[in-house]
């Protein structure tokens, strides 16, 4: 596992050994903006584009994919803008974007996993990160959320919490987190 500086001092990204690229690049280059990936993804989960959340898309995998594509392009620009604002002391900054990931990690104080959404009002996109300090985050995972909870969304249910815990251990092993502080 490695850490990559995507936007120095602001956004870092984990790279898992089993992946060719850092999570940030995997999401914005290989997943969320890849037509083949998106059409296959939505075609293999038709039950979710018919559910109460995404029913308005009319079980149209290409329409869902188009939504992700537009959202992803806008989100990448948005994150760059927020990082720039963070550098210049302007608002909104990255602190306004990421929200605490409740539930499992609700009682952690120092080690705070967070989540971020796409920019569209109804968005499939989720970024999961760890907050190091003000306006400094490590992207741990991300994906397409098809249901109201992580536990009921394919892909996310198997990966989000597992990866957050894995990264936590990596940060301890690399002395980026002081073990006694957890």
């Amino acid at each position: 596992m490695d850490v990559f500086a995507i936007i120095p001092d602001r956004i870092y990204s984990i790279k898992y050994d089993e992946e060719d690229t850092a999570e940030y690049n995997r999401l914005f280059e290989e997943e969320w903006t890849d037509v083949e990936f998106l059409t296959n993804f939505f075609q293999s989960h038709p039950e979710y584009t018919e559910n109460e959340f995404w029913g308005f898309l009319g079980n149209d995998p290409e329409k869902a994919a188009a939504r992700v594509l537009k959202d992803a392009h806008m989100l990448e620009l948005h994150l760059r803008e927020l990082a720039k604002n963070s550098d210049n002391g302007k608002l909104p900054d990255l602190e306004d974007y990421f929200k605490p990931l409740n539930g499992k990690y609700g009682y952690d104080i120092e080690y705070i996993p967070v989540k971020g959404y796409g920019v569209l009002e109804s968005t499939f996109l989720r970024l999961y990160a760890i907050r190091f300090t003000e306006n400094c985050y490590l992207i741990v995972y991300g994906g397409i959320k098809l249901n109201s909870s992580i536990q009921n969304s394919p892909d996310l249910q198997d990966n989000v919490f597992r990866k957050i815990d894995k990264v936590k251990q990596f940060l301890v092993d690399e002395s980026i987190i002081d073990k006694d502080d957890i």
Partner: protein
Amino acid sequence: MAFNLNRLKEVAKQPSEKEREEARFRDENRDWLLKSALIALEIHRYLRLNGMTQSQLAEKLGISPAMVTKLLSGKENLSLKTICGIERVIQFELLKVPSYEKGVYMRCDLPKMPEDNLVFEGGNQNFCKVIKMNKEIESKKRAMAV
């Protein structure tokens, strides 16, 4: 302090040249990359709804299967000629020039219609709808004149 930021900076690697190049390319070409991907999705939908294979589409378009694969990737900088060829086959308008469309249908001798009626969402099919609507208005006017 829980996090050692100096240690983080020591450990953090810089993205590879390939990753930097990909990010730069995305930034510099974002507008047409998005359009190309949206066009690719329309072609995907056409193939799915018509149960057509990529080879059959290649034949209809008169291009190689490899070119169809490129079209479907959504990362190809398509020429207007290619886009018009696709439009002819899938019978769906992919690119619109809004001011041209408005100009064509605002006939001076017809009662002014609400703007909403002049917005086209379904390409050629809606083009026909508007023409039909205009004809109906024209015949009503004639009937009133009599």
